[in-house]
């Protein structure tokens, strides 16, 4: 080759090895220089921040890690610390059960909440991760009934009978569908389910409970629930129920049927326009004015209903945002394929609209979960109320930060996991490979 190019004075025939980038252009030092000390303003801000963070940590870290875990009262803590300024974690050590399980939950029954919690995780996982076996979804469907039985106790016949109502409604709808249209047969199904839930079921359950109680657990009254358990019950029920109701409301608001549309708009605007605390007051206090004196309508149930209605109104608007963001062509494409309304929603519209709405949906979920602390004002002993009750004991009167930090941490863990999951889901569902 070289004899053909004699005019060329020099040809490199071996490549130089790649050199590392000069020091100062890579790694930590470059990152620090580029991001923290790129100009005099940044340098000044960095130095101020370092001083601030240092002074914060210098106070906080010894306070947190130098705290006393082994004490049975604030006085004891103070004696152990003997003037040193540090946390008294003894209160958490001694009373964490009250914050988790509620102040009044009998300690012999704690295992039931453990099982309910583990089952909740197992039931939720197949919904969250589609790599898991689909058969687990049966557990998800059964979970609400298991949960009611585990937490409130009593015989398993009651929850079974409620579940049977759905089965009865399903077969009634199918059966009636042979003789009439789908709308009318659904109505028949609903009517038969109501008949089952309010007349036939309770009668059968009453007889069965008297003769052969099935796995009867000690009954727990609603007012004995509290702490993290009640937050989870209200939060999870609200989340699980508000998404489907929200979807239906969002579709209803887009509907061409004027009556459906008006009802959905009325519902959404009413519940969005009223503060949650007002709804809770209505549930706990004003409802009593309208109910006959002997009607017992469980307080926890009333609260779950109100929280669900409230958040489904928000959910509907979030999903409507997703629907509005879809290009019109998607709807037209669905029509062109000959899909009917429900097929189009299920196969084309909703998967895309929900994907767009994920950040908003999770936002609503997190808000709902934190809003469960409002039940304190209607006499439900959630974590904050438990904290107040602990402080009212002479042993722990005067303690504040430790309890609130602990409760804050619990909420943070829950909300942060939700947020991380939604980010993971967004990445997974991303189809625009830019």
């Amino acid at each position, binding site marked *: 080759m070289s004899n053909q190019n004699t005019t060329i004075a020099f040809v490199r025939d071996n490549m130089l090895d790649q050199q590392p980038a000069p020091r100062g252009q890579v790694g930590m030092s470059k990152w620090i220089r580029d991001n923290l000390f790129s100009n005099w303003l940044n340098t000044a801000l960095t130095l101020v921040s370092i001083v601030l963070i240092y002074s914060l940590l210098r106070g906080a870290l010894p306070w947190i890690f130098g705290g006393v875990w082994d004490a049975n009262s604030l006085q004891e803590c103070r004696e152990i610390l003997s003037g040193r300024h540090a946390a008294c974690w003894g209160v958490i050590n001694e009373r964490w059960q009250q914050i988790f399980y509620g102040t009044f939950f009998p300690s012999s029954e704690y295992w039931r909440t453990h099982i309910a919690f583990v089952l909740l995780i197992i039931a939720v996982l197949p919904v969250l991760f589609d790599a898991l076996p689909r058969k687990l979804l049966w557990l998800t469907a059964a979970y609400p009934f298991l949960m009611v039985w585990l937490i409130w106790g009593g015989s398993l016949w009651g929850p079974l009978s409620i579940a049977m109502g759905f089965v009865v409604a399903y077969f009634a709808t199918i059966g009636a569908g042979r003789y009439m249209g789908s709308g009318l047969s659904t109505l028949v199904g609903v009517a038969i389910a109501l008949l089952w839930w309010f007349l036939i079921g309770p009668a059968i359950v009453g007889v069965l409970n008297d003769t052969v109680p099935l796995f009867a657990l000690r009954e727990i009254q609603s007012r004995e629930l509290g702490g993290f358990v009640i937050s989870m019950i209200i939060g999870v029920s609200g989340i699980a129920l508000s998404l489907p109701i929200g979807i239906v409301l969002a579709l209803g608001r887009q509907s061409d049927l004027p009556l459906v549309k008006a009802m959905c708009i009325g519902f959404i605007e009413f519940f969005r326009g009223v503060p949650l605390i007002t709804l809770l007051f209505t549930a706990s206090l004003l409802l009593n004015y309208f109910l006959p004196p002997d009607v017992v309508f469980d307080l926890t149930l009333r609260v779950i209903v109100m929280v669900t209605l409230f958040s489904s109104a928000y959910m509907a608007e979030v999903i409507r945002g997703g629907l509005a963001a879809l290009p019109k062509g998607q709807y037209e494409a669905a029509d062109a394929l000959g899909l009917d309304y429900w097929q189009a929603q299920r196969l084309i519209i909703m998967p895309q609209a929900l994907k767009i709405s994920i950040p908003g949906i999770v936002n609503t979920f997190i808000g709902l979960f934190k809003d469960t602390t409002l039940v304190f004002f209607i*006499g439900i002993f959630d974590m904050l109320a438990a904290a107040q009750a602990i402080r009212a004991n002479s042993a722990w*009167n005067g303690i*504040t930060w430790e309890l609130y930090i602990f409760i804050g941490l619990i909420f943070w863990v829950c909300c942060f996991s939700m947020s991380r999951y939604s980010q993971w889901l967004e990445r997974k569902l991303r189809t625009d490979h830019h």
Partner: protein
Amino acid sequence: MKKTVFLSALAAAGLVASGAMAQDSGSSTLAAVKEHGALKCGVNPGTPGFAAPDANGVWKGFDVDLCRAVAAAIFGDPEKVEYTPLTSAVRFTALSSGEVDMLARNTTWTFSRDVDLKLEFTGVNYYDGQGFMVPKDLGVSSAKELSGATVCIETGTTTELNLADFFRVNGLDYEPVPVESFTEAQNQFLAGACDVYTTDASALAASRASFETPNDYVVLPEIISKEPLGPLVRHGDSEWGDVVRWTLNAMVSAEELGVTSANAADMAANGTENPEINRLLGGEGELGAMLGLPNDFGLNIITKVGNYGESFEANIGESTPVGLARGLNALWTEGGLIYSPPFR
């Protein structure tokens, strides 16, 4: 003790909504309680010494004892109580709506609550009054020396109004530091955000007892308001009001007559020379039947809960961390205001 504009509005709205309905159930609260099998009692969600669940989730306290006493009078069992913890904002609405049968929740008896909110106070179980606490360093020995002080005050309460009145009457000026809750007030005061913390004297004492260095703070001698705290029921059911009223009176009478939880059973079994003790314990007369209660309701109250003095000493007395002296709450024979009409 505390009254917010909000709760009045809420309670008023509730009452207007109920309108003429005014408690059908109210005409027979006692029957409803008996049928339900437990007394629904509204209590404070957490006030040291007055009402708070302990480490096992059992309600304890001076106000709680009143609920227990009423349950003991009706059922002979002080445990047959369902406690509903109520914030000051919702307590009256909860009572009016029938969510609870009675309130024993350190509530000040005032004209407007009695008359305008259509509630009935059935006695006074604690005579309180508003006081001031200051750091010792301030070198103040009387509230009249507090001119120009910053004062931590819970917003929307009667204490706020009392404070304004007191400073105006005495021609002093002050700078209020509004706070939202008891805890916040305590923290602000300890952090030095205000010179003075004012609220009911019993709460001041309890609060001071919880400080790391209680001796660095003093409660000033002035009491600037009357805060008679007592149990209350709905208007319109005098029979039920009588049950609650005479339960409290039975506890007070027992102390007057020297009947205690220790000697009551003995006195009832053997009878005494004093006919009033016999009537109180059900040995003579038909007082219980007149109330629609078992005739030994007084005996049940005293053996199972204790007399007024015993309840006071066990929950808020000087041997407890709350450490309140009897003061105004001593018997009338000992210079206090506690006085029961006779059992006759």
